């Protein structure tokens, strides 16, 4: 873990509420090894309302360019301010934080389910699986076509299925209703997104006896295990989702009774 200034290399507004920000260490220091599921804590230094840092997943790492990608949805003042940072300006990050998704040792049918901006860590995870020689399936959900993000990038890594609530792209409905879940047998499922979606995915996995990991987005103050604010109730008691998560095996979680 480190606190480091990053320079914004580019800041692209992907749609009405999402930005893709690519950053590189300001002092050209080489990025350390980072793992899918890990996140950063971003300082918001120009707002009277935002006091704490904001946790954002590592969306992708481009080792060659020494760049890290952050995919951000503007939901409030903090994410809005971060997304206002123009190329050339700096962002101060604490990174890399948290545990990461389990990378399987042998090939299988892997499904990566992301809802909304919860697709963010899935790109990095897909890439890592790719590097292992695996070709995962992606199931991406959004409200409408414009909410499906980074489609081209995902398509390079595996087969992509989509759902939209209004049916404007892919199958109509929620990810959990996508036909691929009926038609194909998976060995492991990874998920990140709104809690109700993750719970539904977890139930699907549980019922079908499939291993499943979910990445939580609990509210955080520190992000590195000092405050104990981000706890999730688990079979092992209250665990910190910032150090013992954000990735949890669904069997540990108190989601399914």
């Amino acid at each position, binding site marked *: 873990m480190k606190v480091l200034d990053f320079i914004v290399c580019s800041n692209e507004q992907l749609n009405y509420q999402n930005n893709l920000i690519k950053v590189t260490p300001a002092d050209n220091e080489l990025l350390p090894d980072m793992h899918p599921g890990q996140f950063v804590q971003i300082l918001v230094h120009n707002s009277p309302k935002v006091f704490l840092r904001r946790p954002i997943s590592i969306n992708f790492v481009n080792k060659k360019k020494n760049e890290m990608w952050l995919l951000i949805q503007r939901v409030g003042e903090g994410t809005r301010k971060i997304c206002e940072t123009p190329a050339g300006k700096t962002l101060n990050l604490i990174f890399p934080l948290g545990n990461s998704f389990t990378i399987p040792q042998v090939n299988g049918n892997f499904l990566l389910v992301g809802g909304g901006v919860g697709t963010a860590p899935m790109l990095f995870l897909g890439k890592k699986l790719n590097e292992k020689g695996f070709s995962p399936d992606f199931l991406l959900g959004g409200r409408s076509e414009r909410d499906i993000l980074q489609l081209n990038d995902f398509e390079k890594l595996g087969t992509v299925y989509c759902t939209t609530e209004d049916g404007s792209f892919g199958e109509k409905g929620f990810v959990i209703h996508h036909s691929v879940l009926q038609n194909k047998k998976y060995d492991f499922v990874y998920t990140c997104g709104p809690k109700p979606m993750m719970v539904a995915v977890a139930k699907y996995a549980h019922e079908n006896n499939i291993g499943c990991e979910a990445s939580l987005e609990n509210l955080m103050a*520190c992000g590195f295990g000092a405050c104990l604010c981000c706890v999730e109730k688990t079979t092992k008691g209250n665990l910190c989702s910032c150090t013992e998560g954000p990735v949890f095996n669904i069997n540990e979680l108190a989601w399914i009774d």
Partner: protein
Amino acid sequence: MDRLKVNIGNLEFKNPVTTASGTFGYGTEYADFIDLNRLGGIFVKGTTLEPRQGNDYPRMTETPSGMLNSVGLQNKGVYYFAEHIYPTIKDYNTHIIVNVSGSTVEDYVKCTERLIDLDKVSAIELNISCPNIKEGGMAFGTSCVSAAQVTRAVRKVYPKTLIVKLSPNVTDITDIARAVEDEGADSVSLVNTFLGMAIDAETKRPKLSTVTGGLSGPCIKPIALRMVWQVYNTVKIPVIGMGGISNAADAIEFMLAGATAIQIGTYNFIDPAVSIKVIDGIVDYMDRHNIKLVSEIIGKLII
């Protein structure tokens, strides 16, 4: 760096900058960010006799220039601390001070007893001011009688430096300070968090599972500073000041108001290296103002 030395009771601190209980884990959480050996001391996590799971999620919400928490003293208990955590931190070259919390006087005493033999635990900080537990906690710190009672009981068994941490949720904090001084406390630390609350207007629900929680951060600094100044003008024992400190100027303000040492809490979350920056900033201030010893700042507010 002898010029930074301060004394709390019999203990010498290499500098007045320490970190506040519950915001700094056991120190190890910050080892990647700073050299822990540079700190004046580390007040470790609130520790109770029995393990505690703490309160339900959500336990935290942001507020203007601060935050509310209702962690509720989640910790593995003093026995676990003594056996498993203490060995991993005892070799840091800084004071380790355990924040002792409890629901009954007996809890406090028993918890304290388990700590006496830990050589490197130089002192304890009696937390009679936690607003986030149902029984005991803050209740001890809001009446002179019970504050005196728990201090007396712990003082009886604890031979090392005894610091009592006061609650700001009182009409007159000097009364409580005097009460614990009279019972033999070596020092008072203040303030703990202010009892506060937050509501989500859209869902009509409290933002914390416990409805109320403890307010900390820069927002409370003006009130905390006032209390430190009042207590400094009341008791003879050294005062350890805290509440919203985020930079060296804040730390110096607390020292001018009468604090012998200061603790940094919430701001560690925003800048994990803030404590070291505060130490460096104090040295810089002393150089600019031609101050030889940091102790010369204490209580030197000009009125």
